């Protein structure tokens, strides 16, 4: 009979190998799912993972899209990973993303039609503050009243979505939009535009910020006392308390940082790729970023790679929808599967599999 034996420390080799193994297993299971939908599994997997990068017909369009989609995913996932490491579960990034976008856009639109070069930086700050403030609600409720931050942060996503609907049809609606919902086109206004910085790369300020966040998180976790405290609090909460780590401070910091980063991601999205505040500009990056954070092993470099891979599945999914008429939700199920397989094969990094023999205790 098989038996699991806990490793004294997670295996380094398996920690690196399990995400790759999970991706391979997801491809196999996803292939079966596509076969069940009556599509050729090999072709579907090729369209999702290969064609966006190397197909001469699509690559010129698809390659820049990878950075456009990876930017927000990485930015949000970096913030989430800090909390996940410390045992602070912010799963409401989608709501913080919306609130950041709303706060930033409101700041810019309030000053319309000013052309001041300070408007865009001001919107960025307002965006970060909007996300931060929304994340402070679960943080304060957790530290003051011990309310579960998982439930509060998640429930606040639905509240944020209602506020978004209200803003898109009321407060922030384009006064010249003939009554249609949605704000002015922010990416057509020079003062508020988040442009593509290098032509045909998809690189915009949000992607730049995501890369900076990766570097900052790497330095924080490896060189800074706070990073050490975050890791300690997650691995040994009691030891952390004896070492003088203040759990409330850590909760406020982790939730605040992840909220601010999610808010930034939202702001860069509405001023760039999405272009305006509309009822459904948010497409679930805040939730997919949870998968990205785990797939990247909560490690900044890992998250960078995982974000790029997840962006690839988004674009590949769109291609598969176009080429093979695979329904759009299939790719969402595919991404969910990836997290399952990752969690399943994780057992290999934390445990040794031993074969029980008779008489050995």
């Amino acid at each position, binding site marked *: 009979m098989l038996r699991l034996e*806990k490793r004294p420390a997670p295996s380094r080799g398996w920690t690196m190998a399990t995400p790759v193994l999970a991706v391979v297993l997801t491809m196999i299971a996803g292939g079966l799912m596509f076969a069940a939908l009556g599509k050729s599994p090999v072709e579907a997997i090729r369209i999702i993972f290969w064609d966006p990068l190397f197909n001469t017909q699509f690559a010129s369009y698809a390659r820049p899209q990878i950075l456009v989609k990876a930017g927000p995913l990485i930015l949000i996932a970096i913030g989430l990973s800090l909390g996940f490491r410390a045992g602070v579960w912010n799963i409401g990034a989608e709501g913080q993303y919306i609130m950041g976008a709303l706060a930033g856009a409101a700041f810019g639109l309030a000053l319309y039609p000013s052309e001041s070069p300070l408007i865009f930086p001001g919107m960025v700050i307002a965006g970060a503050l909007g996300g931060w403030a929304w994340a402070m609600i679960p943080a304060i*409720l957790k530290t003051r009243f*011990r309310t*579960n931050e998982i439930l509060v942060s998640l*429930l606040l*996503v639905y509240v944020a979505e209602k506020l978004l609907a209200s803003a898109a049809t009321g407060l922030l609606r384009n006064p010249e939009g003939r009554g249609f919902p949605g704000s002015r086109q922010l990416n057509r206004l020079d003062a508020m535009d988040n442009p593509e910085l290098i032509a045909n790369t998809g690189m915009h300020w949000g992607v730049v910020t995501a890369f900076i966040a990766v570097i900052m998180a790497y330095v924080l976790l490896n060189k800074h006392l706070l990073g050490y405290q975050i890791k300690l609090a997650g691995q040994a909460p009691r030891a952390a308390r004896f070492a003088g780590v203040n759990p409330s401070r850590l909760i406020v910091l982790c939730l605040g940082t992840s909220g601010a980063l999610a808010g930034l991601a939202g702001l860069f999205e509405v001023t760039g790729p999405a272009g305006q505040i509309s009822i459904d500009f948010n497409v679930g990056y805040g939730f997919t970023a949870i*998968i990205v954070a785990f797939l990247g092993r909560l490690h900044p470099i890992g998250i960078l790679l995982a974000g790029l891979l997840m962006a690839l599945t988004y674009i590949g999914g769109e291609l598969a929808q176009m080429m093979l008429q695979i329904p759009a939700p299939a790719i969402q199920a595919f991404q969910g599967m990836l*997290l*399952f397989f990752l969690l399943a094969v*994780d057992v290999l990094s934390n445990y040794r599999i031993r074969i029980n023999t008779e008489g050995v205790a």
Partner: protein
Amino acid sequence: MFGIDPITLIVALVTVSTPVLLAAVGELVVEKTGVLNLGVEGMMITGAVMGFVVAVDTGSPTLGFLAGMASGAALALIFGLLTQLLLSNQVATGLALTLFGLGLSALLGVGYPGLTPPAVADPFPDALSDLPVVGPILFGHSLVIYLSVLLVAVVWYVLGHTRAGLIIRAVGENHDAAHALGYKVIRIRLMAILFGGACAGLGGAFLSVVRVQNWVEGMTAGAGWIALALVVFASWKPWRALLGAYLFGGVTALQLRLQAAGVDVPVEILSMSPYVVTIIVLVIMSSDRSRAALNAPAALGKVFHATG
């Protein structure tokens, strides 16, 4: 007030509450065994789509409910295998279940929005349900609603007054001690997880087949998360979960009526009220240190790894 009929409001309240109540009672049992399954939303929405698809395709709501239960339990089985046998983190696995369930349900439901499910037969004769006032309130519901109240009673009795309930609670309080006494911790937890999945699936199927009578992507809209909040609100006591569910249902039904009546409050404010009320209730419950900690299973969310 605002031309809202209190009788129809009560009837609506019960209908709105039932999906959440079913999911909450299932999760309550799961948490009593020391397992935190955050995948309720995913299991509910999968139950909703499978219940709807089977009810429409076969013309039988009963088969739809059974399909909802089976699909909820099937999803729960994935969670059970991962957390109990492969010892994965319960929070992360539960989230994965929800994300996967939302995608899977949308995929399974392609082509079904807008179809009409078969009507559910009333369990009581018209003579009873036509009685003034008490008729619609007591006898005017679908069978699942009575089942949900019965389920609360059964769970309350089993958990508090039987040997099986004692074992379930022992496993949830201290799995190592329960293991040392010879109880099959993993098997007991797997059964509870399956039960929780079936309850959430039935709740979802009720939502799509009876309450909304349609399939819409993401139609649970956080009901699974509210069910999780209800378990905390209820301090893991079944009757309190019923009270909480009806309170939530009351707020939801009232705000829907107010929207329909065209009250001078923005629609968005009304429609966010159930979520805000849930958060406020959670805060009140958790702020009382003695009450909140009293009944929470001590081993909740902890990984069990037998070494002996």
